[in-house]
């Protein structure tokens, strides 16, 4: 049979089978679904289930394919014929002449620093291989990462500190080695030296001296670093007429204004979620988007643990304007229009009014005074923040679960006003020397206060410090390339004020300058090095940096210092300095708590224009879940990371509800129009009051309120980086800043107009589906979620019957007489997973996983070894009954379907329970990935790894093979980490303890959802978790006996509601 015949026959058969099922209802009663196509059981979905890679995934007619093929062939031909056939080329051993202290080639060193990416810094511990930073994890010794207050008898409790990070911190290692980073100091595109820059600035400053600096303006991002703050103060004293403006696009102006309205002064509010039994979130995504999110997620998860002793779970109510990760974890989630939120907040404060669930919530909160939290989202109006403060005050939460302290910023200002003043000065010609320090204001200032060329050219001399030659650098005269935080000396504050002194892991790759070095020039100190600047500051301020500590009048600091850090007493500065840098934090430097009373009479806000005209929508503006405000647009890992709820990559979308999508564009799903392949979605025009138009692709999100559209910032950049511009040299995504104003930065209303244009979206929502390809009526048991009451009431779980197997069981316990016998396993607790995706990026960093680009993602070829699937529940696409996150790594099945089918034994089972992948044997049959029911295997269809760019060679983990084309890869339970610890402990003659081997995904998970360990050890955390009643195997009925098991989710709904 020829190829085309075979094709047709199967197609006919499939159509026949589908036709047979036509008469019956399409999967009615289906509980869990990942996308609308699945719920509707559209032909496009069935295609995805039937074939892991869509039909016609490889098209020889496609001209791009042919060209790529010939390029590849050409390259491999060039490599093949040369250099005589040697066994392998000779390698050299080159010893150090001067070996850096403590370094042993082959062993990694770890250094503590902090990642000051935006707002508060995250304390991190960075692994350094031969002097190059290669992996970032949280610093477990930092007070912010102290062990969670889990119930004492909880087996999942980790006695060590957390090493969690968020996705931005994880991906920042790629930013360090980004070849697109600015490598030279330039003046109008000409390369110049630092000395010539300093000379030019001296001349400019000399001109300003008679005016006392009246023409100088500094535009920075909000500064929390004590050293930089003191430098700015010095500068403003030296130049009394100069002005300092602060602006960042995702600023917390509303939080500040709300605090001023309620408490009379700006404050930094921090929370203790581990002491809160009831939580009400007013559109606050505190599990992923706040400065303290890592700590909050961990504490929140601690309160959701149910054990024999602790049968009570906390309860989370979320009222929000667009579905978010926090809403997904909520016991009750309501999505409302932005215009309705204030009314609901007032009703909650009063205890009645509004929808009927309001009074139930109010009653519930009242019953938990002092053990509850009301938190309002950063984007909400100041009035809603004031209402939240009033509610916390009325409930007696202040001082118990809600704490006020001084703002983190050195100089807390209203940033919108600050920008307005700068714009006024620019327009009136008062600015002669403009220094833009960090950020990208040309791109991200709002449309009414835009710093475009017309405005900027009025400033005679413009200086810009940034890591990339971005849009702002192109409009400034001098561009100074900035050092990455991993190359810098500095300091930063974390969410509660604790200071970490940053130390560099590597010399600046391109001689970049830090903020401190640049500011020193303006104070006339041209030669000061950053280390000296930071050290001098701390020498003078060491005691002020540390607060009075516990019991000193103002109440104890929010994060109690860990026991045993008696560092305050070190009289000698040098030893204090070294100890502080070693530990990664300045002890007792958390901001002290203040007692403030909130006013209860919150004035009504000015009436907002509610969208009433036809075609007019209320708009929610959010920072993108993976690109934030645009600063990470050139970071390939973040671009390719599927966003938590939409699972879109390499694009931003405008999110609408199912009804609105049908209303605007007549579509009912996200691209079911093309069978089998890409998601084509319609684009709409978003028009604001000034007539600015932005064309955006729409995405239907279950649960989004009707007539509300959510747009995301951060895309549409005109910066010409290899990643930000995409393969076609077109900007990636749409630029939402074009329609964002300064007076309505987060909520506004726009006209939405339908267009005929369609857009190809690369979304992973339908990829790697685990449903039954035979389309049986049985829905597979994938996600389990129960309410707490059901869980307590039901009898002992059904016996775990093991299906009979023809495979001999592995003798995991009897391998060697005296050696430790390990059996590795993993438990993933769905109750804890908040869908942050940190595990995916951590795995990518640890295992040298390449990115593949939008085109390949559209063909299901993304390479992430662990993916986080999102499942919606219920029958109504407009109002899902809950959202569940499920991380899926390789299950390491004991009866692995992938092992017997490999013709060359490239995937075999190790004696310790791992499913090994041997790259050097793999010939690329792909039978193994075909057989895998969990679809966790990834194939290198092309040479996805970049072997040529030198910077990436520095970044890669030397312990893990960098795969070439044609080999299959998958999660290995971080076998390199297992081996490293095994070797170390065997040399020491002992057994590896529980918790010594931590996989990359486990390390960065903020909620300890992933636990890895030795199943042979009955006392290990993972063994105890596997004995939990909630434990189950994913697709266990297939008898694969996976080593990775899941613990079902529990929810705690209020019986009074619904």
């Amino acid at each position, binding site marked *: 049979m020829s190829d085309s015949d075979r094709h047709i026959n199967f197609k006919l058969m499939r159509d026949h089978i589908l036709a047979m099922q036509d008469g019956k209802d399409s999967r009615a009663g289906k509980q869990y679904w990942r996308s609308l196509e699945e719920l509707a059981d559209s032909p496009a979905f069935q295609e995805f289930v039937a074939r892991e890679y869509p039909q016609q995934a490889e098209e020889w007619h496609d001209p791009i394919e042919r060209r790529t093929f010939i390029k590849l062939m050409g390259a491999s031909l060039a490599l093949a014929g040369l250099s005589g056939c040697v066994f392998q080329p000779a*390698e050299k051993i*080159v*010893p150090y002449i001067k070996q850096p202290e403590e370094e042993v080639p082959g062993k990694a060193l770890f250094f503590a620093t902090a990642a000051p990416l935006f707002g508060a810094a995250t304390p991190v511990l960075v692994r350094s291989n031969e002097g190059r930073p290669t992996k970032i994890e949280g610093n477990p010794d930092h007070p912010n990462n102290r062990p969670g207050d889990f119930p004492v008898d909880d087996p999942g409790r980790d006695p060590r500190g957390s090493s969690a990070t968020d996705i931005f911190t994880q991906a920042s290692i790629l930013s360090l080695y980004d070849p697109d980073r600015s490598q030279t100091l330039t003046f109008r595109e000409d390369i110049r030296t630092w000395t010539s820059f300093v000379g030019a600035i001296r001349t400019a400053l000399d001109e300003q001296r008679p005016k006392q600096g009246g023409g100088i303006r500094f535009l920075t991002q909000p500064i929390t670093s004590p050293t930089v703050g003191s430098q700015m103060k010095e500068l403003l004293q030296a130049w009394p007429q100069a002005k300092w403006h602060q602006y960042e696009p995702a600023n917390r102006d509303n939080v500040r204004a709300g605090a001023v309205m309620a408490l009379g002064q700006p404050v930094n509010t921090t929370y203790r979620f581990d002491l809160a039994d009831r939580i009400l979130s007013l559109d606050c995504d505190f599990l992923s988007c706040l400065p303290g999110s890592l700590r909050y997620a961990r504490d929140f998860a601690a309160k959701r643990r149910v054990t024999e002793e602790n049968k009570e779970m906390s309860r989370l109510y979320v009222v929000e304007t667009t579905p978010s990760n926090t809403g997904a974890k909520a016991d009750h989630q309501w999505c409302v229009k932005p215009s309705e939120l204030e009314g609901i907040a007032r009703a909650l404060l009063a205890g009645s009014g509004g929808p009927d669930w309001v009074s139930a919530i109010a009653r519930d909160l009242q019953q938990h005074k002092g053990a509850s939290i009301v938190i309002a989202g950063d984007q909400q109006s100041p009035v809603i923040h004031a209402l939240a403060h009033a509610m916390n005050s009325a409930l007696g939460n202040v001082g118990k679960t809600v704490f006020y302290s001084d703002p983190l910023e050195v100089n807390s200002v209203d940033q919108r006003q600050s920008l307005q003043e700068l714009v006024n000065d620019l327009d009136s010609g008062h600015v002669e020397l403009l220094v833009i320090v960090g950020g990208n204001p040309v791109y991200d200032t709002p449309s009414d206060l835009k710093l475009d060329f017309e405005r900027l050219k009025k400033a005679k001399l413009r200086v810009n410090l940034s890591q990339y030659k971005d849009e702002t650098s192109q409009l400034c005269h001098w561009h100074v390339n900035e050092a990455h935080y991993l190359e810098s000396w500095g300091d930063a504050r974390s969410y509660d004020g604790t200071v970490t002194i940053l130390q560099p892991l590597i010399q600046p790759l391109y001689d970049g300058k830090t903020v401190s070095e640049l500011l020193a020039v303006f104070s006339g100190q041209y030669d000061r090095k950053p280390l000296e600047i930071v050290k001098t500051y701390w020498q003078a301020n060491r005691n002020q940096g540390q607060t009075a500590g516990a019991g000193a009048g103002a109440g104890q600091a929010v994060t109690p210092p860990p026991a045993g850090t008696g560092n305050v007493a070190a009289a000698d500065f040098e030893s204090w300095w070294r100890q502080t840098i070693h530990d990664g934090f300045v002890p007792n430097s958390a901001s002290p708590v203040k007692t403030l009373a909130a006013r209860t009479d919150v004035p009504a806000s000015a009436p907002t224009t509610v969208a009433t005209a036809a075609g007019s929508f209320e708009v929610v503006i959010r920072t993108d879940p993976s690109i934030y405000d645009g600063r990470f647009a050139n970071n390939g890992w973040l671009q390719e990371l599927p966003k938590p709820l939409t699972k879109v990559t390499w694009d931003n979308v405008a999110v609408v509800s199912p009804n609105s999508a049908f209303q605007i564009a007549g579509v009912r799903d996200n691209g079911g129009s093309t069978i089998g392949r890409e998601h084509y979605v319609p684009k709409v025009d978003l028009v604001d009051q000034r007539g600015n138009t932005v064309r955006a692709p729409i995405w239907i999100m279950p649960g989004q309120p009707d007539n509300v559209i959510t747009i995301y910032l951060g895309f549409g950049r005109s910066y010409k980086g290899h990643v930000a511009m995409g393969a076609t040299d077109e900007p990636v995504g749409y630029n939402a800043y074009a329609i964002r104003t300064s007076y309505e930065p987060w909520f506004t209303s726009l006209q939405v107009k339908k267009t005929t244009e369609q857009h190809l979206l690369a979304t992973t929502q339908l990829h790697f589906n685990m449903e039954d390809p035979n389309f049986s009526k049985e829905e597979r048991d994938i996600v389990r979620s129960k309410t707490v009451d059901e869980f307590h009431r039901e009898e002992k779980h059904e016996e775990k019957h093991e299906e009979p197997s023809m495979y001999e069981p592995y003798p995991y316990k009897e391998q060697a007489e*005296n*050696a430790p016998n390990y059996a590795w396993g993993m438990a993933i607790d769905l109750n804890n997973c908040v869908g942050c995706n940190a595990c995916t990026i951590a795995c990518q960093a640890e295992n040298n996983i390449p990115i593949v680009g939008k085109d390949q993602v559209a063909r299901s070829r993304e390479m992430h070894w662990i993916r986080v699937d999102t499942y919606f529940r219920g029958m109504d696409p407009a109002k899902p009954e809950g959202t569940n996150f499920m991380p899926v790594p390789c299950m390491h099945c004991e009866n692995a379907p992938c092992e017997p089918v490999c013709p060359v034994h490239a995937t075999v089972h*190790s004696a310790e329970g791992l499913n090994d992948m041997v790259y050097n044997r793999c010939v690329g049959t792909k039978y193994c990935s075909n057989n895998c029911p969990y679809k966790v295997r990834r194939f290198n269809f092309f040479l996805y790894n970049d072997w040529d760019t030198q910077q990436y060679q520095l970044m890669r983990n030397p312990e*893990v*093979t960098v795969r070439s084309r044609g080999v299959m890869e998958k999660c290995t339970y971080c076998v390199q980490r297992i081996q490293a610890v095994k070797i170390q402990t*065997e040399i020491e003659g002992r057994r590896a303890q529980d918790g010594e081997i931590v996989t990359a995904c486990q390390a960065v998970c903020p909620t300890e959802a992933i636990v890895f360990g030795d199943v042979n050890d009955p006392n290990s955390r993972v063994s105890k978790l596997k004995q939990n009643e909630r434990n189950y195997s994913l697709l266990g009925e297939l008898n694969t006996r996976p080593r990775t098991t899941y613990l079902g989710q529990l929810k705690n709904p209020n019986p009074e509601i619904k």
Partner: protein
Amino acid sequence: MNCHKQIWADSPYLEPVRASFRTGKPIEWIRVHDLPDYAYFNHSIHVNKGVGCSTCHGRVDEMPIAYQSSSLQMEWCLECHRNPERFVREKGKVFDMNWRPENKSATEIEYGRSLLVKYRIQGKQVLTSCSTCHR
């Protein structure tokens, strides 16, 4: 340069060492025992578990210039990984070049087995698992 300032200070064979000392550039040694990149070999675990130098490297004390005396092919490694009792020696004798590299008689093999237990060496199934060396 501590020793070779005094010992064989003028020998032409040691010219690279002196040049390196003068210029500060390291000597680029060519690896004699080189495994392919896909095999992740750890030296310390072998030395610490009683695999002596001469077992793998041969009689280095009798080599004027070092050469590779074993094939270093995977089948050669597996000879020992499948039967470690034949090649393991007492840790004290690891540097002894005269030690016969293979336990052949029954008593020697028994002794080897007792060493496996004493040094807590992993079982054959673990030693011949692919991920022990390939990852």
